């Protein structure tokens, strides 16, 4: 077989593999969205779920998902940023930092259900937070931290060393250089990482079943005092998220329109995650352009 033929075989094989992946992805997305679309309506997106009768919505679950996402980000982003800055800018290459890196890698490969059970034991039981948004947010922080730290670290590492030298040569301290030059320069990449991890958090179910709970008590959307139990902002209330809701309906839903609700909720979830991904590209691209081309 000459090299020309083997080259063509290789190209054809790669085409087949690539198109298989695209077809599987398109079929999956298409199926979820097409079977979910008929269920979607304003009423469906805003009204609370019903346990036994048809016509329930996903309003509270949708709100819970976003609230949990924001709370998780508020907790995990500062930690991840600090860890990323430490690992990339300050840490010396020795056994301790390689241990930290290994630990982060191991943490990122933990099954999310294990993270959930750990969160249950520590936050729900030991700390007495109960099934609550706060427990869920802490569990998701464990789940989110490794990947976010890694992506921030990589974003910082991609900033050329000339920038660091430039800052120091201007008489900036190391911290000023990091704060005023390196982090801003890495911002587009950091933001992309944040939004992508938001998509992962949004779709997470297993880690939340045992931490944020599986019930969505009715919320009073006119009461924004976080200390009231029926307030949407109360972090100590149990909060079933969209992804958990889908799991719940499919395992033990007894409402007559369970299938339609599950399809609709799945479509909303997939569209949201897709939205996060597109947003990440858009924002990252825009910021990069603003920084480079004026």
């Amino acid at each position, binding site marked *: 077989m000459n090299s020309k033929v083997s080259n063509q075989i290789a190209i054809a094989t790669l085409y087949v593999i690539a198109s298989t992946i695209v077809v599987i992805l398109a079929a999956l997305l298409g199926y979820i969205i097409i079977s979910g679309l008929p269920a979607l309506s304003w009423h469906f997106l805003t009204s609370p779920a019903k346990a036994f009768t048809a016509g329930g919505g996903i309003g509270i679950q949708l709100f819970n998902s976003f609230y949990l996402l924001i709370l998780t980000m508020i907790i995990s982003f500062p930690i991840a940023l600090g860890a990323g800055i430490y690992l990339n800018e300050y840490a010396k290459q020795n056994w301790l930092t390689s241990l930290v890196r290994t630990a982060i890698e191991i943490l990122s490969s933990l099954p999310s259900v294990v993270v959930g059970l750990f969160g249950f034991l520590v936050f729900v039981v030991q700390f007495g937070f109960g099934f609550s948004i706060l427990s869920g947010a802490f569990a998701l922080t464990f789940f989110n931290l490794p990947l976010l730290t890694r992506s921030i670290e990589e974003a910082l590492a991609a900033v050329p060393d000339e*920038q660091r*030298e430039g800052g120091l*040569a*201007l*008489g*900036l301290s190391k911290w000023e250089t990091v704060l*005023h030059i390196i982090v801003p*320069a890495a911002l587009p990449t950091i933001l992309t990482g944040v939004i992508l991890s938001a998509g992962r958090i949004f779709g997470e179910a297993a880690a939340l079943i045992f931490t944020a709970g599986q019930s969505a008590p009715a919320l009073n959307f006119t009461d924004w005092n976080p200390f009231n139990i029926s307030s949407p902002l109360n972090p100590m209330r149990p909060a079933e998220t969209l992804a958990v809701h889908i799991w719940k309906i499919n395992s033990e839903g007894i409402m007559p329109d369970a299938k339609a609700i599950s399809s609709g909720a799945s479509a909303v979830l997939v569209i949201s995650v897709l939205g996060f991904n597109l947003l990440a590209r858009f924002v990252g691209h825009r910021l990069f352009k603003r920084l*480079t*081309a004026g």
Partner: protein
Amino acid sequence: MTNLLETHDLHVYYGQNEALKGIDLTFEEGGITALIGPSGSSKSTYLRTLNRMNDLIPNVTITGTIKFRDQDIYAPQTDLVTLRKEIGMVFQQPNPFPFSIYDNVAFGLKLAGEKNREYLDQVVETSLKQAAVWDEVKDHLHESALSLSGGQQQRVCIARVLAVSPQIILLDEPTSALDPISSSQIESTLLKLRTDYTIITVTHNLQQASRISDRTAFFMNGEVIEVDDTKKIFMNPARKETEDYISGRFG
């Protein structure tokens, strides 16, 4: 005239490897000194020792004295921030920060706490004019500095150093990443600055050294072989190694 900067018996070691083997050099105020020499002759190491940029490299040992206005810059009480404002540096790769041209030039002052907008505007304009890049960028000061060409970026970097009004400007092969036209623009910029600033530049380009510098120091294998007026070095060097190098017999 007193010496602005002087080094005595300056040794630099990277681990076990002795990169600089006892350098004695003095720099008077004003003028351009060129450091020339083959690759690996440690002239960049020398330059980066003068504003303590080498401190950042792990495993580096520095002995001997460097005096800036009779103060030992390696003394414990030296304030690095002040030192690097007095002794600015321009690098081989243009390294503007990913901000606007204006913010790049005003950066040093802003961080030092300067808030007066009019004063900042004025310094930015003066610095960019001194760096001979004002006419090209004055209409888009608030666009990203990364959108400029390499030569313009390098001159903005020079302006950024000038804005904090240093005494000495160190340049580490400032034109080696630039095309010939940009290089000659940088050269004429430096020639304009030589009356107000003390300039020390490392260059691989011998023509450049002979065109712009007043004094030339020839480095080889971590030692200064010869230092003298540029004319003397290029027309009538005292040492055979110098002659061999500038006539292109090696290096």
